[in-house]
């Protein structure tokens, strides 16, 4: 048997209840190569890798590590085989320093701190990591935490690294640095797997691409032979038009004026710092920023869900032309004034929908209270649920199935569908396409564009800069609760936005300045 493979998985199947997450998937990972695992959400990318990392155990199939069949029953087994996985949600102890997190759980015999630090330093130098070992995790940026996770895994002796959507939370500059590190790891002979659904990254970094679709193995191609079109087709199963039809904004009118808006978040930190901007009807205003930059508070303040400290939000009614102050009004008061404010919040099941309820009952959420009857009227929401299921292609056993049982993409379709159905004057979306497959993403972009043409003022908070650049008319960039700039989406570049997102010169670490301790 060829032992050039670091990992070989044969006919691996995993089911959850009646859902088949992976069906007879076979794949190989070579030493010293970067393999991209490409697939839409729900295609089973993370599941198959979780089986390698010992988090799930396959229902059937074989796993060979360095040519030997192994059974990986726990993350500990995986560690012993040199497999390390960096999950989307970091598993770090917040109140520990970087060094403490790396050593954690490794104490065999006496702890020689000096030797440990020397080894960490050696790893950092070898692969090009930059990290402050004495910095506490709660003071770290997302990118630093990710770096720490990777160092931790390498320190524990991993030769096979799996990164689950590593770039989802990074700025373009941070992504570039991560890719450099990954290339260094490849050069050192490690096998690296990147789980992703971003095509340009696949083409940029990987040697081979393995594509999964709906839990099944589609194929593996060498990256140098691959094109974006071809990969999309393999991923989706049919040809997809990857163009966003951006029309020039017509007849824009002032719809929403935000003036000097400030607010504190639950921890009492200033989350929005003196924000002023105007959103026009008939235009898509993109909002970019690293997660936690105040985007959530901004939308919630406008929706009447967030207590504000100062400032005002003026809504200009398109039909009457009157100006109405929104600050200080609850969502119900705003609705009763006849202001159609639609909001797709980031937390779909925790805020936008009720997980234990079916589509019908979720349709009622926004206007169940419209008429003054004691009993709920389920006929209209049922009709709306059927329509949305039909038009957006929501995959659900029935419109009465609890929405928490649906996949992330379908949950989002339900939410976006409901919000758009109410013919809004302002549409606010936070990460509207997060977790959605390409097809659905593009149908959501189209829906948003339709709203724009209807004269709706759209506020689009997004994380994918490529999409922001091709969908929006203007892009507002937030950094740490401050407005760092509003740019024209047609003329700006990814790099410019990336810099505005971190608002500092070259590296994000510098200039943060908080909680840093002096070096030795």
């Amino acid at each position, binding site marked *: 048997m060829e032992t050039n493979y670091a990992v070989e998985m044969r006919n691996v199947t995993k089911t959850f209840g009646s859902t088949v997450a992976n069906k007879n998937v076979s794949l190989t990972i070579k030493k010293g190569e970067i393999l991209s695992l490409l697939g839409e959400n729900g295609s089973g990318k993370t599941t198959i890798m979780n089986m390698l990392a010992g988090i799930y155990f396959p229902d059937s199939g074989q796993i060979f590590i360095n040519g030997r069949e*192994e059974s990986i029953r726990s993350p500990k087994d995986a560690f012993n085989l040199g497999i390390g996985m960096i999950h989307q949600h970091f598993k770090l102890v917040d109140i520990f320093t970087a060094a403490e997190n790396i050593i954690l759980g490794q104490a065999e015999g006496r702890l020689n701190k000096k030797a440990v630090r020397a080894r960490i330093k050696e790893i950092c130098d070898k692969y090009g990591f930059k990290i402050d070992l004495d910095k506490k995790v709660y003071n770290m940026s997302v990118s630093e935490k990710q770096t720490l996770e990777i160092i931790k895994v390498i320190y524990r002796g991993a030769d096979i690294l799996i990164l689950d959507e590593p770039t989802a939370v990074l700025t373009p500059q941070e992504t570039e640095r991560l890719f450099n590190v990954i290339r260094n790891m490849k050069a050192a002979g490690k096998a690296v797997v990147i789980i992703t659904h971003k095509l340009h990254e696949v083409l940029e970094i990987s040697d081979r691409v393995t594509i999964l679709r709906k839990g099944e193995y589609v194929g593996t191609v060498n990256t140098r032979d691959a094109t974006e079109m071809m990969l999309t087709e393999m991923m989706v199963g049919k040809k997809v038009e990857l163009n966003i039809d951006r029309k020039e904004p017509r007849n824009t009118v002032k719809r929403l004026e935000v003036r000097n808006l400030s607010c504190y978040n639950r921890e009492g930190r200033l989350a929005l710092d003196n924000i002023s901007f105007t959103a026009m009807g008939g235009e898509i205003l993109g909002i970019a920023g690293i997660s936690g930059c105040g985007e959530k508070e901004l939308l919630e303040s406008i929706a009447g869900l967030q207590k504000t400290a100062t400032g005002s939000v003026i809504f200009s009614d398109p039909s009457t032309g009157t100006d109405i102050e929104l600050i200080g009004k609850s969502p119900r008061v705003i609705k009763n004034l006849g202001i159609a404010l639609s909001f797709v919040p980031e937390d779909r099941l925790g805020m936008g929908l009720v997980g234990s309820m079916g589509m019908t009952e979720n349709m009622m959420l926004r206007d169940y209270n419209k008429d003054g009857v004691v009993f709920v009227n389920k006929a209209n929401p049922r009709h709306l649920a059927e329509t949305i299921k039909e038009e957006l292609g929501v995959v659900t056993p029935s419109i009465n199935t609890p929405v928490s049982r649906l996949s992330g993409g379908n949950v989002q379709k339900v939410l976006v569908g409901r919000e758009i159905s109410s013919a809004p004057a302002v549409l606010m979306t936070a990460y509207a396409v997060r977790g959605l497959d390409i097809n659905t993403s593009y149908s959501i972009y189209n829906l948003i564009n339709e709203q724009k043409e209807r004269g709706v003022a759209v506020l689009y908070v997004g994380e994918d800069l490529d999409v922001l650049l091709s969908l929006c008319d203007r892009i507002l960039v937030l950094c740490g609760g401050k407005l760092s700039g509003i740019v024209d989406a047609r003329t700006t570049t990814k790099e410019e936005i990336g810099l505005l997102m971190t608002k500092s010169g070259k590296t994000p670490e510098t200039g943060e300045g908080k909680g840093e301790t002096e070096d030795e």
Partner: protein
Amino acid sequence: MSKETSVKEPLIRLTKRDGMPVWAKILVYLVSILLALGVSALFIFFVTKLNPVDVYKTMWQGAFGGISDTVRKLHISVTVRDICTLLLLGVALAPAFKMRFWNCGAEGQMLMGGVATAFIMIKLGNSGLPNWLLLIIMCAGAILFGAVWGLIPAVFKAVWNTNETLFTLMMNYVAIQITSYCVALWENPFGSNTVGIINQSSRAGWFPELFGQRYGLNIIIAVIATVAMFIYLKKTKQGYEIAVVGESKNTAKYAGISVKKVIIRTMLISGAVCGVAGFVGVAGVDHTISTSTAGGRGFTAIIVAWLAKFNTFFMVAITLLIIFLNRGASEIASKFALNEYAANIITGIILFFILGSEFFITYKMHFRRKVKEA
């Protein structure tokens, strides 16, 4: 393929089920009850040296049977009476629990309802009011007192976000103290330290016999409450709001629901129905008031509400089971001269198995497959 002996699956793996058809759920429950009876039989045989079949027969007799027709009728009517009171309390908890407001104060809310009932019974018993009017006034008083006892923790929860479990629990003790003060106040005969049977000769404020049934009115009240609460929770806007608040307060705010208002309103209802249970307990069953009028049923109701998943119709089945076990247990305790604990152990075993069956309904177990010869 090479044969590998080092590859081992874990012995037992658990996976979550997608859902289970209703018949399968019922089957699991039936099997669990049979298993429970089996285990209890072992306990009965080895610890008390009695014949388990005899013991079970006696339990059945205690709840639904009897040596003669009169005894049987008496047993059944007592069983039905107890079911009504417990069911009312379970129904009272349903809206609060659906809102994830852990009302552990049904005991106190029922007692306060009972105190109000007894107070009006004593004060207006000789006023010459027609009995139906007196009953309505008593019921209104009980609803008011129960609702106030539910309102207090609700306001604290809504405004200052206090812990409702602790708060409602402590309110029970306050209610007990108030009750014992009232008992001392209304003592009759003097020095007995009990209130005695109120209006024994005039029967003013007692539930009348309905359709020849001593507890006819109890049944009617329980049935109305059960059906009304079902409709309230499933079909009304307020019921919808309760479900949304229970699932996620953030979603409720997003939908423009005033969380505070819903908490307060729902606890008023929950407390009010508990008050009705107190009214039924005093005017329809005991005709007196004491600190043990609720008798721990406010807590048993929590089990009822949970086992029934807050569905008021399932509560009927659960209360039936629990009351059957209680009645049966006290019957075997007296007949076989066992102490109460032996009977309670049997009850405990059966409840334990029923709770355990939840596990098998939620999860599926996979055992390591036998190695197949390749």
